[in-house]
């Protein structure tokens, strides 16, 4: 049973190796036939023909962090919903109530974010 389990994942490993091999083969093949003349100008960011000013990175706004944190929250929620969904029928009413409480408490956070207006973009 354990070896069957691992054999399933061996296919995943093979696909991963294959993906790297294909990409490597194509890039390697391309590097054999393409001309190679690197220059400083080719590495600059293309901005409609205008020379770029400053770097491409700037400090982003704190509001992005709220969205990232909301994502983490609902990601963790999803992690708990997956196992629950596999046994949903066995748990019946008990499982439904427990999961409803769980989702409701997390939805309170979303509601709070909504009320405080942090979801508004402009």
């Amino acid at each position, binding site marked *: *049973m*354990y070896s069957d*389990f*691992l054999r399933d*994942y061996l296919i995943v490993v093979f696909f991963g190796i294959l993906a790297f091999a294909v990409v490597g083969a194509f890039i390697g093949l391309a590097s054999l036939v393409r001309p190679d003349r690197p220059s400083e100008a080719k590495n600059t960011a293309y901005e409609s023909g205008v020379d770029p000013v400053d*770097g491409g*990175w*700037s*400090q*982003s*706004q*704190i*509001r*992005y*962090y*709220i969205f*990232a*944190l*909301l*994502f*983490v*929250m609902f*990601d*963790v*929620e*999803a*992690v*708990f919903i*997956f*196992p*629950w969904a*596999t*046994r949903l029928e066995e*748990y019946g009413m*008990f*499982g439904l109530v*427990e999961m409803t*409480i*769980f989702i409701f*408490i*997390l939805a*309170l*956070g979303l509601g*709070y*974010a909504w009320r*405080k207006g*942090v979801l508004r973009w402009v």
Partner: protein
Amino acid sequence: MSLFALIAQETPQFLPQNIAFGVIAVISVVAALKMVTTSNVVHAALYLVLVLASVAATYILLAAEFVAATQILVYIGAVMVLMLFGVMLTRAQIGAEDDLNHDQRWIGGLVAALLLAVMSYALIDHYGDDRLPETIVPQTTAEVSDEIFSTYIVPFEAISVLLLAALIGAIVVARRD
């Protein structure tokens, strides 16, 4: 006697797993070393992705499928996004930097060595010469679910409150007014 021969003699049925573990462990350690030595913060975050992915692969080897999926979904998917946003929020300049290394690295190394010692002691103290069982039964997601919804039902509900507190805290800190 070489290490591989020793492993093959001791546990012949686990030889492929041992080789796979060796490969994963090497990837993990190299990525971890690159993570702390690279001069680009974003590269460090991406090396951390590689470390976390190899940890997920180790979970697969230990037949803990659900834990591996959670590791990928939550740590690589969500926590890394959070960390990258954190880097983008706090540092105006992203790219190679020369001032990432400073005197505190020796203290950091000391803390890491202490942590290694404590964890090694805890593991050896608890497991000692114990061996993996001859037959390993992979844990299914349904079994994990049964554990959550019986033994760990209170922590499960407490997690929602914890997540709520984290979100409200972030909103309070991040709000404009």
